[in-house]
């Protein structure tokens, strides 16, 4: 399994940009990077995926450097409703998808 490491928690305020960095040092050539969001008492929800450089959708941006050993999820102008746990996953060739502990993001007014 490609092990991922994320900060345990991050605090922010409404309107700020939140950047969460995930380390995946042993990522393989064909592996993709995905990020999920989870609210209490709900299943995780897919946010974004990427292979290299930068990917942006209506919710977030994902930055992946050339060596692909890390990735950064960027949440622009967060609101209270963005308070959640965010997970970074590396999708392996065999699709054995495992979640790490995730990063608890708390947005304050």
């Amino acid at each position: 399994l490609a092990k991922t490491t994320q900060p345990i928690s991050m605090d922010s305020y409404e309107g700020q940009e939140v950047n969460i960095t995930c380390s995946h040092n042993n990522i393989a050539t064909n592996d993709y990077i995905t990020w999920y969001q989870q609210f209490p008492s709900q299943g995780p929800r897919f946010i974004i995926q990427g292979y290299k450089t930068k990917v942006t959708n209506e919710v977030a941006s994902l930055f992946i450097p050339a060596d692909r050993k890390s990735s950064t999820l960027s949440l622009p102008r967060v609101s209270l409703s963005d308070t959640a746990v965010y997970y970074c996953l590396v999708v392996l060739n065999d699709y054995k998808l495992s979640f790490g502990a995730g990063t608890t993001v708390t947005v304050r007014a």
Partner: protein
Amino acid sequence: NAGVTQTPKFRVLKTGQSMTLLCAQDMNHEYMYWYRQDPGMGLRLIHYSVGEGTTAKGEVPDGYNVSRLKKQNFLLGLESAAPSQTSVYFCASIDVGGGNSYEQYFGPGTRLTVT
């Protein structure tokens, strides 16, 4: 589409009892997964299936069995429940035939308590 559904939503078992959790998806996805999530923890992969009739072990398979007799259903069985299996169980599926999309779709979860 209903997406991914799980039955039941809640269950209380006594130690030693058995039960089966049902996961159903109507998206024709090939791959399906069972996870457990303990309070304050991330999700841990129990078993997964890469197609009808196939299953594989995840990170924490002990004490669980699974079956994928039909493509749309993935069953998780507890033969002899233990208090350590008290958890929230999530099922998920993924479409691997639709290009380079790795989006997992999750069910609402089953909250299981073993006393």
